[in-house]
């Protein structure tokens, strides 16, 4: 496994969020899916906000994957995503549609099939 190529990091986390550090209650799960709202033009965004929006332009991303891509702490990306959410530029989608039991049944089934390919 090769090391991931560096970096698209733009500013330190603190600067990226304009010094805000409070966590967004709306986006607690790092697997929250960020989805672009089509057709909404971006107003004047800060460079980090713009960078996140550009990433989500390309397809759906989890918060964790967005943080990995932007090389920013999840806590910072959570705040940036909250900004884009407030501006109506993205939507935040829950990680799972199914209830816990069905979800875990699917996972268990899927893992067992990995062991014994049909």
């Amino acid at each position, binding site marked *: 496994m090769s090391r991931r190529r560096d970096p698209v990091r733009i500013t330190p986390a603190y600067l990226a969020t304009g010094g805000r550090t409070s966590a967004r209650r709306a986006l607690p799960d790092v*697997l929250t899916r960020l989805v672009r709202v089509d057709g909404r033009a971006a107003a004047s965004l800060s460079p980090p906000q713009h960078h996140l929006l550009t990433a989500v332009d390309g397809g759906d991303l989890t918060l964790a994957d967005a943080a990995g*891509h932007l090389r920013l702490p999840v806590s910072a990306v959570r705040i940036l995503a909250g900004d884009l959410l407030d501006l109506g530029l993205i939507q935040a989608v829950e990680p799972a549609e199914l209830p816990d039991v069905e979800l*875990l049944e699917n996972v268990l089934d899927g*893992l067992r099939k990995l062991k014994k390919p049909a």
Partner: protein
Amino acid sequence: MAFASSRSRPDPAAAPDGPAYLPSSVRNMVKLVVAGGLGVGKTTLIRSVSETRSLHTEEVMTAPSSRVDSLAFTPRKTHTTVTMDFGRLTLGESGETVLYLFGTPGQARFRQAWLDTAYGARGALVLMDLRRPEVSYEAMDLVEESGMPYAVAVNDFPGSPVLDAATVRADLDLHPETPLLFCNALERESSIDALIGLVSHSLDVYRRNTGP
């Protein structure tokens, strides 16, 4: 940054170093945490089973540092980041369900970072190196405190003491229901078995709590 101003949707496959986009087939993402002390094999296990592996960081405050700011003479809080790794595994033929594994040390002093990462996880696998079991105790404590279902997996390190399950259970003071598994994180099959052990247990717990 070649794609910085592009509004079109590039093919993810065409940009191997680009963001790890979710395939449109994905409906359900499930998080499991792989916890344990330094060098117990978290990264190895995640690597053994995952299609992709990524990194993310969490910002933590190594709260009020003993260092005193020489100019202001005020105690400073030091911001630092901890790096965690995670992997992704697509399950089932339709590609609807994706399993995410988050490796996180689970150190008490990074408690908030642990809680942020673990939020929503359906279970934790606590890895154990029997040559130095104590390095995973903090992780076990955090996992227990969080209340999420967990299993303990003893990694097969060279020179590990050969102990029977009952002894290990007693040493770790495991609850009778907590699965004790043995695995080799270097091997994919063995790592998947450990995950199966954990998820079976999680399923039991969730079933009981949503019972009729």
